[in-house]
């Protein structure tokens, strides 16, 4: 298991300060696990076919070793992780809201202005709500985040040479 490179600590602090503790936690977990060998897509496809066919003819493949993410490589891994994680989440939100709008409109007469659904997450007293306009703003802000992460990565890599 790789130890966390000290150069990563300001990024972890920034995540915590921005309220993205969950990303910081996931990121540290991912670094601790390192790169693990993955199931090839064709094995997953075979598993799905055998699921339908009462199949038990499953051949195991030999284990292969994980590789640690160490030193400066953690910087590149972390910036890529954060960017992909948030971009995917924004994509899911946007697509989910668009699809919910489609469902809302599916059994109604056409209207001049389509109705829009918002997503609300409720946790006791805490209520968080987001609509498509807000998701669009988040997507714009992602460009700033990508640029800031890239700048920091390049600086950290230059200092680490």
């Amino acid at each position: 298991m790789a130890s966390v490179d000290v150069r990563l600590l300001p990024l972890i602090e920034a995540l915590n300060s921005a309220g993205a503790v969950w990303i910081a936690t996931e990121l540290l977990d991912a670094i601790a696990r390192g790169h693990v060998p993955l199931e090839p897509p064709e094995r997953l496809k075979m598993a799905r076919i055998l699921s339908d066919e009462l199949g038990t003819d499953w051949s195991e493949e030999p284990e292969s070793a994980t590789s640690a993410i160490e030193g400066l490589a953690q910087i590149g891994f972390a910036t890529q992780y954060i960017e992909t994680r948030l971009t995917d989440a924004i994509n899911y939100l946007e697509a989910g809201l668009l699809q919910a709008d489609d469902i809302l409109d599916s059994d109604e007469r056409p209207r001049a202005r389509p109705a829009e659904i918002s997503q609300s997450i409720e946790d006791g007293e805490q209520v968080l709500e987001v609509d498509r306009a807000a998701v669009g703003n988040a997507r714009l802000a992602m460009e700033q985040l990508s640029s800031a992460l890239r700048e920091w990565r390049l600086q950290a890599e230059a200092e680490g040479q």
Partner: protein
Amino acid sequence: MLPRVESALNAVLGAAVTLQHANGPGRAFELYVMTGVAIRLPPRGFDVWLQRSDGTRVSPTDPDRRFIQRGGKPTGISPAASGPGNASAIGLRHKSSGAAWEIWNGVQFRGRSSAPHEIDLALVPEQTGAQLRLTGGMALGRPWVSVECKDVGTAGSLDEMRAFVARMYDLTVLHGHRRYLPTGQVICSGPAIYPAPVTYRDANQAAFSAIVRRTRFARGSAAMTAYYSVRPYAQVVVNAPEATQFLDEVADWIAIHCH
């Protein structure tokens, strides 16, 4: 500190505020999956609608058009009497047969052991939902469709698969189990439409179970999938062919089995 990074993070999470919640990204993934399945059902012969926790439909002209997802500890179904402000669902009805169903998100089901098990996306008969909304509570048994949605960045492990298989095992109610079950429980499979299977293999084959991941599976984690009929889907991200394949396969299964 990294002021530019922090400022940009604040802007992203300040706009998409649901992503501030630890469960927010997971709920976004689940919203995408459940609505993605639902929009594929009208061409396959179903009417679909968004439904509040009290069982009422969301109309395009309603002032309140929120799709509510639970952020905190998972629970069962809320009683209709507690109002429309709990977790939303998606309703569907087969146009020819009239058979009605509900897609639930993040709802707990009770296993034979009495342990609660949260299912990220579950398809149950509408009767199960209607009965539970009278008093609130958990359905006992296994949904017709059970999908575990994993959006975390690390690869899926064999332990993740074991946990899902164990959950399905506890939720499976076989013919021989029925006499040992506590009375007065709402059994989600409903004997009239889901004949109690004799073996676990029958039960696994009769339902659709899947683990769907944003990322990939670690080598070896697919080992238990074929035998227990848990379909593994990886790299399910928006606009990816893997996502289209997964969503189409769930919708096809519903179209074949749920009418």
